[in-house]
Structures are given as C-alpha cells and as structure tokens.
C-alpha cells in the first residue's frame, strides 16, 4: 500500500472517528475535550495558511480570532442577527482588518514580521480593553436563552457544538486544500522558500501574502464566533491574548508546519496533554499541571522539531522519494 493510499485511509478513519465519537462516548467531559480538539485544530489549520504555507509566522492571530468573536456577538446582541450570518460578517471584517495590518507589516521580513504581529495583537487587545461598546475589559456575554439552531446556543447536549466544530474544521481544511492546489498555493510556497527568486519570476510578493493573510484571518475569525457561542462570554483576556496566538502557531508547529493535517495532529496532541495534565495534577495547587504540560512540549520540540508528521515521514519513508506532490491526498505527507 503506497503512503498516499495509507494516508487517505487514515484520514477517512479519523473523520469517521470524529463523526461517531459523541454518539458512542456519552461522557460530557470527553465530548467537551473532543470539541476543544476540533476547535483548536481549526485555529491551527487557519493559522497554517499564512504561517505554514506562506512562511509568514504570525504571533498576533488572536486579533482575528477575537474580531470574529466580537463582530458576531455584537451583531447578535444589538440586532438579533443569527451567528450563522455573524460568522461570515466576522470573517469579512477580520479579513479586511488583516489587509490593513498586512499592508505595512509585509514590508518586514522573517523575525521582524513576527515581532510586528505581536505588537498588532497587543494593540488590538489594548484598544478593546478600553472600548465601552465592546464591554471593555469585562467583555460581552450572550444570554443562555433562547437556545436552538438559529441563536446557535445549545443547552446540555454537546452534539450540536461537536458537529458545528467538525463542519468548520472540514470547511477550513477544504479551503486550505483548494489553496494548495491552485497557483496561489505554489506561489506561496515559492515565496516561503525563495522569495527573491519568486519575485524575479514576476510573483508579486505582497499581493500573494495579502491573499494568504486575508484567508487565514477570515477562517480564524469563524473559529472565534464558535468560541463565543460555546462559552457565551468573550473578553480580551480569553479571545485576544498573545497566549492564544502562540497556541495557534504551537499546534501547527508541533503537528507539522506547512502541511494540511499537521495542525490537526498537533491540536489533538496538545489538547490531550493540556487536559490530562490539568485533570491529573491541577488540584494540587503547585502548578504541577503546567510543569508537565511545558515539559512535554519541550521534549517534543527537542526531539522532533519537524513535528509529529515529520516523525511519521522519517519512520515510514515514501516508497518513491520523488513522489508527486499528490495534492489530491488529504494527508499532505506525500509532498516533498
């Protein structure tokens, strides 16, 4: 069995598992953990379009995630607009915001771009902290009632949130996959690997980077809307913090940066470590959970800097080293 086929089989099995999981496992805690995994995976995949494929490491993506959360919540609270529409409105606003931010920031290269995005993230957080319309530092809260499909609030059942999160992840993966297949995807990889060569061939660096950031931030914003609907409280500390930005990049880097499914693997792993260490050690009050969490991340970073997918590639090398990029494969593992 070639690796492409194997990859496809594993991906389908994973999809089946994700779809059936909440039907089989009825414990609310495990269901909730699965939803967190899907949500974190979605953020990582969205981040990966800019940070992985285009190689522009953003450490301020929470600004876009938060924009999505705030826009849809504000529209729901002020105008009673359903979050289903608010989600796309938020994505639009976040994409527009990202273009405004990207235009000056893309003049910076490498580390300097990453540093600029941290600054942008902090600025957005500071602005929202002092903005009364957005509830300032207290944030905005959505009512527990009414529940149902249109208000996107569900009472005890976790199933709706699970399938919305899964659907959103699949949508984000689809967009990502379409990008990698299109000429934009090839240009982005060229920009990442050899920006000067790409420019000499007539690829407009800024233009394609702007495409990438708009898509990436729009998708991150959709994740923000889902967060707001699930937790019913958004505040700058939980939707706009630099810690959240780092988490988005961390799952992509742990799983395998610049690959389609790497962030998904990273998200499953990171969330599992996070939840298990907290459940196991959280009550001691000695910070043991955070120590265990940090230690595991350090171990992965030291021993497997190319991410979990990188490790899989080493363990199971492709039969033909010059395998085609196989864009049709849901697992990007076959790409060189």
């Amino acid at each position, binding site marked *: 069995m070639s690796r492409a086929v194997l990859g496809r089989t594993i991906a389908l099995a994973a999809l089946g598992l994700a779809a059936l999981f909440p039907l089989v496992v009825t414990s609310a805690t495990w269901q909730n953990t699965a939803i967190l995994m899907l949500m974190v995976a979605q953020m990582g995949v969205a981040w990966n379009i800019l940070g992985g494929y285009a190689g522009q490491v953003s450490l301020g993506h929470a600004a876009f995630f938060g924009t999505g959360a705030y826009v849809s919540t504000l529209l729901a609270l002020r105008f009673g607009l359903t979050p289903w529409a608010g989600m796309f409105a938020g994505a639009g606003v976040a994409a527009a915001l990202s273009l405004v931010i990207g235009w000056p920031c893309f003049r910076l290269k490498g580390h300097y771009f990453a540093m600029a995005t941290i600054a942008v993230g902090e600025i957005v957080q500071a602005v929202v902290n*002092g903005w009364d319309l957005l509830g300032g530092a207290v944030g905005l809260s959505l009512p527990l009632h009414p529940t149902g499909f249109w208000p996107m609030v569900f009472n005890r059942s976790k199933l709706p949130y699970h399938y919305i999160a899964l659907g959103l992840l699949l949508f984000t993966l689809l967009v990502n996959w379409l990008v990698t297949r299109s000429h934009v995807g090839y240009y982005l990889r060229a920009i990442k690997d050899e920006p000067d060569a790409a420019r000499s061939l007539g690829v407009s660096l800024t233009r394609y980077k702007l495409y990438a950031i708009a898509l990436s931030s729009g998708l991150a914003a959709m994740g923000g809307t889902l967060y707001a609907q699930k937790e019913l409280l958004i*505040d700058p500390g*939980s939707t706009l913090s630099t810690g959240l930005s780092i988490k988005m990049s961390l799952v992509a880097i742990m799983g395998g940066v610049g690959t389609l499914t790497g962030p998904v693997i990273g998200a499953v792993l990171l969330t599992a470590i996070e939840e298990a260490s*907290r459940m196991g050690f959280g009550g001691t*009050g000695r910070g043991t959970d955070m120590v265990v969490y940090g230690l595991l991340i350090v171990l992965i970073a030291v021993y497997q800097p190319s991410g979990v997918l990188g490790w899989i590639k080493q363990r199971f090398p492709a039969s033909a080293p010059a395998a085609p990029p196989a864009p049709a494969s849901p697992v990007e593992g076959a790409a060189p």
Partner: protein
Amino acid sequence: MPVTFRASLLAAILGAALPAAAADDVVIGVMYPLTGSAASTGLELKNAAQLAADLINGTDKSLALPLVGGGGLPGLKGAKLRLIFVDHQGSPQVGATEAERLITQEKVAAIQGAYFSSVTQTASQTAERYGVPFLNADSSSVGLTQRGFKWFFRTTPHDELFVQNAFDFLRDLEKKKGIKVHRVAILAENTEFGTGAARLQEKYAKENGYEVVAKILYPPKGTQLTSEVQKLKAARPDVVFQSSYLADAILSMRTYKDLGFLPTALLANDAGFNDSEFLKTMGKDGNDVISREVWALDLAAQKPVIGKANDIYKARHGVNFNGNSARAFTGIFALADAINRAGSTKPEAIRAALKATNMGADQLIMPWGGIQFDENGQNKKGAGIIVQVQDGKYVTVWPMGPGAKDVVWPLPAWEGR
C-alpha cells in the same frame, strides 16, 4: 455457583477500590486559580476552604461556629464533607470545562468558586445548565447576580456596595468630624477591576455632589506612572480614589513621593493595597493609606470567634486570614449549613435550602449582618468595612463606633515619616 462467586469477587474488588465511606460523603467541587498570576491567592482560598471542611468533619467543638466538631453533617447522619479542588487557571473556558467535569464525572452536590469574576460567569453558566447549585464567595462584579440565574448564590457583597461604603464613609466624616471633601480624583488600572470601579465611583461622586476633577485609567503592566501622577497633581484633588493591583500600587506610591504629590487622603479599593507584600515593600510610606476591606483581624476585639478561627488557620498555614481567605472559609460554611438543612445531596433540595438560608451574624467570621439571599441569589446582609494602615497594621476605621480606631486625616507629609 461460579457465576455468583465471580460476581461477588467482582463486587469485592470494586468495593476495595473505593474508599468505604465514599458513598456517604457530600462532595463539593471547589474551583480556584491554582496556577498563573493569582496562584498564591488561589492557594490561600483553597487552604481556607479545606480548613472549613476539616473543622466540620472533625470532633473538636472549641470553635463556636455552627456544625463545627460534629464529625460531619448531622442532617445527613454524619456524612463528611469532601472537597475536590480544581484549577481553572484564570481562564473562563477552562472554568466552564472544569465545572462540567465536576458535575458529570465527580457528581458534586454543589460547586464553590471561582475568585475571578469572568471565570465565575462561565462556570456558573455550566452549573445553571445542569441545575447544580453554584456558591460564589469571592467575586465582586455587579453583573453576576443580575443574570436571573436560578442556581447562583453569592455570599460576598459586590462592587457597588463597596463603592457606596466609601461614600458613606465620607458622609460620616463630615457628620461626625466636620471634615468636608470637595474635589475627588479617580485613578484606576484599565482592566475589568479598575474600569468597573472607576465607573461606579464617578457615578456615586456626582450623585453625592462631589466634583470629579480627574479620571485617569492606566495599563497595569506599565513601568512608569509619571505622566498620570503629574495629571493628578495638576488637578489638585482632596481625595484620590484608587484601584490598583500590587505592582502598580507600589509604583504609584513611589511616584507620588518622588513628584511630591500629597492628596488629603488616599482611598484605595482593596486589591494591591491590601496585599501582604504591599506594606513589606512600602514600609512607612504605606502608612495612613485608607482602603476598603471585607475583613480585618482587629474585628476579633468585638467578635472573639474571629480571633479563634484565625489562630487555627495561622497554626496550620503560618499566615493570618485576609479578606479573601475569610470569605472562602465562610462560603463552605454557608454550603454546609444549606446541605445539612436539606438533609439530602439532591441539587433541588440544596437549592431550596440555600434559598431559605438565614445565618446570623454570630455564626460567621465576617463583619456581616448574616447570610440571607435575595431573589437574585445575592446575600442581602453583606457589608464592607474600611481600614487604614496605622503603624504598619490594617485597622478598622469604618463603620465608626465601638472597636473602630480614629481615622488619621489628612495624610502626613512624605518627609519626616
């Protein structure tokens, strides 16, 4: 026969795996920030809650509080309280997740938490969804009891009452000592705590006829406050209302001294000014600062049970109670009182008992009139106090009356302290 044998073997194994009394314990989930910037506070809260449970479970009756030394809850045939502590890391999302785990996995009868108002909000939402009582002993954001929740109960007074107290204090100063304040300034850090307090202070100042000459918000993580203090100085206020965390409280005091800014009085809003580190760092420069509080050790002079409870806590943990730990301690007593009267661990029975709670002032280590919840779950009988640092100690100066010290007014000059 082999089937029965196997079944009984299985039962024996299962039985051995669980502590014998587990089925009879009353399990309460307690969530506090045990990691992150508030971890040391969270640990104090945890210790205080555990002490309350241990006193109720124990047999030493020397402390004159209800249920203490009964060896468990008499209303449930001596069932012991078992607290399960979880760390919400200060994150509202983790708070909701952990509340759900406590309810569905640990099958808790009730939850107490969560110190941070934002986490209390999401965690109590989860409790509301599942129909499990949530007792909040230490979050002061006003909005928490305005949500129309059925399962939410708060023993501590909220921010609006604290701000009201400060203005009652100024009114009493005028009435009883003839001290008149005209110009007030507000200085606050710009996150939830400070902005919320500043908004209320401005509202009450205007309603009470004071002139608000400056309202300045600053980022709490900043490394200097020079321009803020210069603005304050230029506004020439009589009284400065200040809401700050620890590091910025210390920084602001140092800047006042450096720039020679001396208002008539500094009325702080708890937090950094009441942290035990504040006086350690400030030394004599911290003297005569006035702050709102919910608890002070000198209250023991009026109410000996406060001193006794504090002795027990100090013997165990080496520090005195403070406003936070005393409230967490009291929260467990309020829950235990309700569960004991309910005579059941069924959520609906506990909720009904909580609604009927009527604890007297003598049953608490707080300076409150008692505990009785209104229709929103807010304790109607809560009250705040105002303390002043005098000779390196926090002493009660308001409510004025027996047991309260005379307030030092105005602030003495920085030089010659």
